[in-house]
């Protein structure tokens, strides 16, 4: 089996219409395909808070669930609440939660390619 290939015409059309006007130059990995497979927290991209996110999620599901799509801070925020309230996630300490949310919003934001 293989990882995702781009065959979805609809996605292609949406991309054409909605490419961000400004490409943000940042020294970070923005595509799942570029995360080194030998990275300790693969498939998460490196960044501050990566270990908190890794260990906070791995008890229940694989990290591909996290890297499949990039979302806004608001969506990640709601998703963390949903995990705790509806999915039995152990509630992280507030400071850990803040680190997790910062990581997700920064490194797996809307420009992320899963």
């Amino acid at each position, binding site marked *: 089996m293989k990882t995702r290939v781009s065959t979805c015409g609809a996605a292609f059309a*949406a991309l054409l219409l909605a490419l961000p006007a400004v490409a943000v130059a940042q020294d970070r990995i923005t595509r799942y395909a570029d995360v080194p497979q030998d990275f300790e927290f693969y498939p998460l991209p490196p960044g501050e808070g990566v270990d908190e996110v890794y*260990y906070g999620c791995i008890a229940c599901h694989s990290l591909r669930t996290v890297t499949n799509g990039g979302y806004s801070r608001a969506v990640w925020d709601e998703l963390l609440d949903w995990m705790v309230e509806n999915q039995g996630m*152990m509630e992280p300490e507030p400071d850990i939660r803040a680190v997790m949310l910062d990581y997700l919003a920064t490194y797996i934001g809307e420009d992320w390619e899963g």
Partner: protein
Amino acid sequence: MPKKDRGLIELYHDDPERAEYMVFGRKAGPDRRGFLKGAGLASMGAVLGTTIPFSAHMPAGLLPGALAETINEFMFDAKHADMIVHNDRPVNVEAAAHLLDDDITPFDKHFIRNNGTMPMPMSKADWRLKIDGEVNEELELSYDQLMNEFEHVTFRAQLECGGNGRAGFNPLPRGNPWMIGAIGNSEWTGVRVSDILRRAGLKPSAVYTGHYSYDEHLSGDPDRPSISRGGPIDKMMDPHTIVAIKMNGQDIPIEHGYPARIVAPGWAGSVSQKWVTRIWVRDREHDGPGMTGLSYRMPRFPVAPGTEVAHEDMMVMGAMVVKSAITNPVAGAEVRAGAPFEIRGQAWAGDNHVVRMETSIDFGATWQTAELHAPPNRYSWQRWRQTIIPPQSGYYEVWSRATDNQGNSQPMVVPGWNPRGYLNNACHRIHFTAV
């Protein structure tokens, strides 16, 4: 197949004490045994589904054996090499478009959408199906009873994930980024749910069903269903809604619901509970996990992309919508300019059927009507085919557009954005090059 991210076992192997602190919040006592002030004991117990009587002696960094011994019967090798893996825990796998070419989808090309664990198969002898709630007589049926006491029906049925096509929405809603392959059309054999409900006797108060299964929630909490959806009684009494016991003439593979599952074709696949063990007949719309909030729900009115929609403005999805897939040529194929070749695919339409199929190879400027086969039975997808001649060498796209018997057709662009990204039925497109 992609490298899997590290599981609990590998995590423990690297740095066991850190692993259990991060996963369970456990801090061991000064002698590296027990649980310092109980930290982590409750969460480890929750995952194990029980308490740990000798917890004071439990060495630090010891992965509980119950987790270490988890055996997974399902192997990814059971699926075709061109299947696309979105996730391995939970298992979520879809077909590349060209794998949808079979009129009857074989096991190895049928998508998998799991919400919970891939369970260890329950034996037919142990399996029971309970019918309770708004019925005159509660039933508990064995596999043998399903085999011997009810009429069996066999037909082809399209099962499609409600989120098939989600990857096309912008902004991308959370959930598996399905492209077009979270659909299958296998041949299912089983007992009509209507026959079972008639035997139990529906009370006038019966309006909806809630389905339960023996797979486990990913958190390991035994009191938490992985997912529990259902459907209105009218859909459940449809003669094509069955408790399936065979897929393509054989026992249903574990990843598709062994030994028995609901098949409610034409509706979001989650109505078709795999590993089903209970049908709870309700006097109201079911409210199990997957029925409420934003899950499997659409806004009652159109919303702008990215809108935060209040839960009370959402309603449960009904039938899936008209759609088609191009299964030949394979995306990126090279063909001869000026020579005829066949493009073909499948088309389907939820509770309806497809009456017209059109394709375009000039970006929608002109459309040609394709040959369309009648469905062999209601709820099967339908074969379409067409011979085209690319007039000169260059880059082309085939676009496909189906129209159903209610006059609904596929939009050219992505239809109404919704918070969880359901019901994207935009025209499918495949590119090819003529040389």
